[in-house]
């Protein structure tokens, strides 16, 4: 989780990622921030993020991203 927070803070350090639950819904992250994030997450956690994962619920909070990462690592 710490590694994930580091990546997120590199994208935008003005957001409180432990509290924020609507990164996508409130447009704190735009589409291109998400695309960038996908590449970073794939490299950092050795996972493959496919189109099916590209839903707001997977990227709305650090917690949701962490759940997705763990799920993809298990597969």
């Amino acid at each position: 989780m710490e590694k994930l927070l580091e990546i997120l803070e590199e994208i935008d350090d003005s957001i409180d990622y432990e509290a924020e639950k609507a990164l996508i819904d409130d447009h704190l992250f735009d589409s291109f921030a998400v695309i960038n994030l996908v590449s970073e997450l794939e490299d950092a956690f050795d996972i493959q993020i496919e189109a099916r994962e590209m839903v707001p619920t997977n990227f709305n909070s650090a917690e949701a991203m962490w759940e997705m990462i763990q799920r993809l690592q298990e597969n």
Partner: protein
Amino acid sequence: MAYHEGFYLFAFLPLALICYQIVAEKHRWKVLLVFSFIYFYLFSGNLVIYLIGSTILTHYAAIWISWIKMKYTQELSEVPKEQKSAIRKAGQKKQRMVLTAAVLTLLGTLAYLKYTNFFLENVNSLLASLNVDHSFAISKILVPIGISFYTLEQIGYIADVYWDKIEPEKNLGKLALFFGFFPLVMEGPISSYETVSKSLFSGQKLRFENLKDGFLRIVWGLMKKMVVADRLYIIVDKIFTNYQDYSGVVIILGAICYTIQLYMEFSGCMDIVIGSGKLFGVELPENFKQPFFSKNAGEFWRRWHISLGTWFRTYIFYPVSVSSLVKKWNKFGNKKVGKNITRIVTSAFTLFPVWLCNGLWHGANWSYIFYGMYYFVILMIEVIVEPLTNKLTKKYNLDTLRIFKTWIIIFTGELFFRAESLPAGIAMFTSIFTDFIPENLGSISLGVGYADVFAIVLGCVIVGIVSTLKEKNVDIQAKVYSLKTPVRWAVYYALIFMIIILGAYGTGYQPVDLIYAGF
């Protein structure tokens, strides 16, 4: 029998409500299904076969994909770990084949019906310009109503099953109701099965709250359509048909009037659609969110025709964004050319297919393709200047200026969108700079009188106030309901009488078809 016409509002809809209420709960969805197919048949006659055929195809493609998933999941549980990856890949390949075949068939049908003649006309022009003595015969192709809308829903449904977002619907009738639901079928909103199915199949009895909400929403939509849009139609039609007769200043007026007409018409129709759904307790997604408060074109498209934007983002933008080519470029670019250039190239690569498809989706016409490309260029400019915009907006409050800039972008886009042809659009746009004669405005005839102008202005002011309050998160509906009974009823009657007295119908007015139903 469009949504704003008397037959729909005073005969079809009440009859559907009565039949829905008198049958048992578990059969109510069947009433909606029957009424939906009657509605479709009344518009498109035998072309209903396209809706039935594509629904059957979608149904079985989704079931097939789901069956492959099940088969391979079972196989995976029975094999050692080292074989799992190969089996998983084989399963995914088969699912992808079914998905691709189904999507290509659906898109192929849409392309054949909508674009064959456009394609042949362009081939004929090309052959003529090359002095080739041959031309392809062009025959009229009848297009079923709403095909552009329900085809996107069908593709979305199969993709959602493929992506494990939803389980496929086992009941063909229920799926047919989702794609053909009469309030949705003509102009959307393009809905996802996940969002709508639960309330659509619930068969809940008619409730006073839903009837009240639905009724108010329908009346509000009728006001926008009949008082404002249909009166503006007269001005817009005159300017765009005879654009050569008008100077640049009138062309600007035409572009502004058309933008307002389109908004009042399309969002008004969505109010009637969402209100119609609400009467039955069916929750449909919103399609507009105060678009004229947008500070840039990107935001505008998140507030205007939201369901189309969402569809393109989900099924084109993101799949392209996470394609191996874009991922590879992102990694390479971030290391070699810097984040900013990488972002610009990635944006170009991912936005281009979205906006090409957006233009094509609206119809077989170079104006629409130009319209799509226009927004592609505008959005690319916004991506390029984003670092500067961020710096400036942190320092200064530029909201009003940015909103005004977005209006100019919107008006210009709609000018080309509405123009009779692309050359006409270019001529109209050019005349703004070459033939701008302000004094012409007072002496021109636009086919409307003071009463029309009064109705348009009054309607715009009311919609403007309501939109401003909504933008400030004021729940207008709750406010109206909280009014004392006489005042509340005065509001209802004021709206109804506004439509009766100021609506553009009857002698002297020709019925105006719903613009988006033509797409």
